[in-house]
């Protein structure tokens, strides 16, 4: 599992407004890529184009190409719903389904897509929760509501839910920004573990986090408010943090602006 993502000259629009301009990058399979950059620079928007979630927003559209191995995600014949089964997503705030138990949350994607076999589902519950480092904490209360867990546990539940549908790629949109440092550490450990199986792209505002978990880092910026965001540079994380080639990157990671 884990596929390569190839993006070529991607522009993202909301209606007439160009949110992200001219992004090209390659994300290696089974690696962690971090997107950093100031708020509003389009990194989350760009992330959402990787599983076509931006189309949920009215007026969202792209120009350019996103290839998953050798499949074009934006080809005419491709169903966005199918794309999202292959490219999963974890959101900024933990969002377990409030009507469902922990167990049902994990297998929500499978059940809603028609898997009925109880044995398969039970096995998947354990497998995914173990995969998300949550099994030991919840194995005795699988039928309790998912919303009763702590924030960090909820986020790991959401990760379990995302990996239960066996995606190739996992997109994480600031998955730790609503969590305390200990829960953050748990998620970071999990990311390191998950990259053995999945291609992971993580948006973060926390530069230490990017440095800790990612193999590659991409820095996004925008010239001014109202202008589209751009990819400034992308390189090995070590390189970006120790010896960035662009001045804007250096200014950003060292905390100097404008």
């Amino acid at each position, binding site marked *: 599992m884990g596929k390569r993502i190839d993006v070529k000259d991607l522009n993202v629009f909301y209606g007439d407004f160009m949110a992200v301009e001219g992004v090209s990058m390659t994300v290696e399979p089974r690696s962690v890529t971090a997107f950093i950059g100031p708020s509003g620079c389009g990194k989350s928007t760009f992330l959402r184009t990787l*599983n076509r*979630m931006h189309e*949920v927003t*009215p007026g969202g559209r792209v120009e350019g190409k996103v290839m998953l191995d050798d499949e074009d995600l934006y080809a005419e014949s491709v169903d966005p*719903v*199918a*794309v*999202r*089964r*292959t490219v*999963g*997503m974890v*959101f900024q*705030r933990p*969002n*377990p*389904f*409030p*009507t469902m138990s922990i167990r049902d949350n994990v297998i*929500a*994607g499978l059940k*809603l*897509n028609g898997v009925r076999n109880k044995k398969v589902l039970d096995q998947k519950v354990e497998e995914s929760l173990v995969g998300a480092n949550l099994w030991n904490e919840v194995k005795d209360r699988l039928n309790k*509501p998912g*919303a*009763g867990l702590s924030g960090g546990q909820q986020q790991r539940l*959401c990760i379990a*839910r*995302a990996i239960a*549908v066996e995606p190739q790629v996992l997109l994480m949109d600031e998955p730790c920004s609503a969590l305390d440092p200990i829960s953050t550490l748990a998620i970071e450990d999990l990311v390191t573990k998950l990259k053995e199986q999945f291609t992971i792209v993580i948006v973060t505002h926390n530069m230490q986090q990017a440095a800790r978990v990612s193999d590659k880092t991409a820095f996004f910026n925008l010239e001014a408010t109202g202008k589209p965001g751009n990819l400034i540079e992308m390189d090995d994380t070590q390189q970006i943090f120790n010896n960035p080639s662009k001045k804007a990157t250096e200014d950003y990671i060292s905390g100097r602006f404008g």
Partner: protein
Amino acid sequence: MTAEAAPPGPGIPAKYSDAHSGDDTSPGGGLGGIDHGKSRARALKNSIATVLIWGAFFIALIPLVWILWTVLSKGLQPVLHVNWWEKDQSGAGAPAFDHNLRGARHAIVGTLLMGLATAVIAVPIAVLTAIYLVEYGSSPFARIVSFMVDIMSGIPSIVAALFVYAVWVTTFHWTLLPIASSLALTMLMIPVVTRSTEEMLKLVPNELREASYALGVPKWKTILRIVLPSCLSGVITGGLLGLARVMGETAPLLLLASYTQYLNQNLFHGSMAALPTMINDQALNINVHIAEQRVWGAACTLILLVLGINLLGRLIGHFTKVKR
């Protein structure tokens, strides 16, 4: 500032330590220049506003309590008799010569049946309309629909009744049936339930929809399996409140449902009594004691039914509510 003046110990800022520095002389006991106590003018305004709000509340309460008291004191006595719920008015003679109260079963059953038929027709339409408006509605057509719902909620009930009458009798020359009243009530119930369902759907956080989409779940399934269950209690409550609202409607029944003193349990045959029409019929002889008792009894029953349905709605809402 006091921390600099008299550090109580290494590394402990003064405001976190118990030790008070001696030179802290700022007025207001160390809050740095903020006066203690409320300012007089603000306290006065606060009192005036409080008095006004409570006053308005009690004024609004007067008619409510008055109505409830009158209806209960005059109507509770016949309602508490078991005959009231078990017998209809069959065999009742001219008011002045008939001293047997009998029951209101025909009207109670009629009100409930017509209300049920109304809900069965109105709730699916209203819920689907609300889903369309909230989940799919960004087109100009949706704005027109939303506007129409606004207009519908402003239609006087007698106009809804006239519309049904015009279609049913004038256009198709059919005989009026009890279900015709339900159709008129449907027109009154749809906008109420649509609006309440819309509000409930809007309360479902977008994050849940996105979480479902991100799992590769199609939109229709997301709405059916994630969004609706998350707000089901609100939708049910809204439906029952809408039902309670139309069960007390009178104008459509006066026009479309002729009163009968016999029990009729078939919505597609004959005429059917309802509590409002029973009140109207008996009120013609209100100066006769027995008729007066029937009027207040029916009024009391109607209030109790509506109250019961309201309570049921709240109860279901409470128990089906998503626990967080």
